[in-house]
């Protein structure tokens, strides 16, 4: 019998104070998957990147909310980070390593590159004036999970 999937959603104000809250909340939620320390660091980093993007670039001059949805599917986790902000005009451009639209803020331009390399699946969809949605899937490869699958 398939286990029912375990999901959680959080909506929070697009304020930089909430970046640490978001990554810690996701790390706490997926603790039940028994990830390694390295996997936890990768997940926290990816969440931090996606949420920071939503806050800085989604809502550059206005208030708004960040919508975070996390789902556990067997040994995989899916995360969706969404904003209803300004959207991205040229997705290919922003995904290039070292590209930043805000050099004035000392941004490194590495956010998308880091996200892509820390997860198995990574998609960005965006519409100008409507917002941006990042969806990612990461597999947790702990020995604990491997043992469960053998049974």
């Amino acid at each position, binding site marked *: 019998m398939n286990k029912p999937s375990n999901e959680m959603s959080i909506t929070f104000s697009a304020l*930089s*104070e909430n*970046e*640490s809250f978001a*990554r810690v909340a996701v790390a706490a939620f997926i603790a039940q998957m028994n990830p390694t320390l*390295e996997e936890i*660091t990768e997940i*926290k*980093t990816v969440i*931090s*990147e996606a949420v*920071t993007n939503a*806050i*800085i670039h989604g809502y550059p001059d206005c208030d708004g909310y960040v919508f975070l949805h996390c789902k556990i599917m067997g040994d995989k986790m899916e995360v969706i980070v969404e904003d209803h902000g300004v959207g991205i005009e040229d997705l290919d451009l922003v995904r290039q*390593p*070292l590209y*930043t639209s805000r050099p004035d*803020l*000392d*941004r*490194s*331009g*590495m*956010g998308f*590159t*880091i996200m892509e*390399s820390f997860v198995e699946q990574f998609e960005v969809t965006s519409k100008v004036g409507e917002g941006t949605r990042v969806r990612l899937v990461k597999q947790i490869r702990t020995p604990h999970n491997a043992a469960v699958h053998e049974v």
Partner: protein
Amino acid sequence: MFQITLYKQNAGSLLVAMLQGELDHHEATHVREVIDKELDSMPVPLLLLDLEELSFMDSSGLGVILGRYKKVQGKRGQMAIANVPPSVSRLFEMSGLHKIMRLYSSQSEALRSMKEVTQ
């Protein structure tokens, strides 16, 4: 939680910044401001970042480090980093930062090497 501790050596020509906790976009502004305030008053700055107690960093941290590197270079100074945690080391490699930055395995080793430069 994040904390930055600064101290100066070499009659004020060498600034050591010890970063502790989680460095993200929210904390990055503060780090940039306090380091730049000191750098602005140093004619040819030597800057050492000690990351031994840094438990988390994302691309915002890379941006702060890269920005300070450019600033120090612009004043013909030098910058080095000591005690890079393995998780941060991965980000350095991805961004190419490990190729331009002088990295040391301890603060004392970095200080020895940086003081030689000034003599």
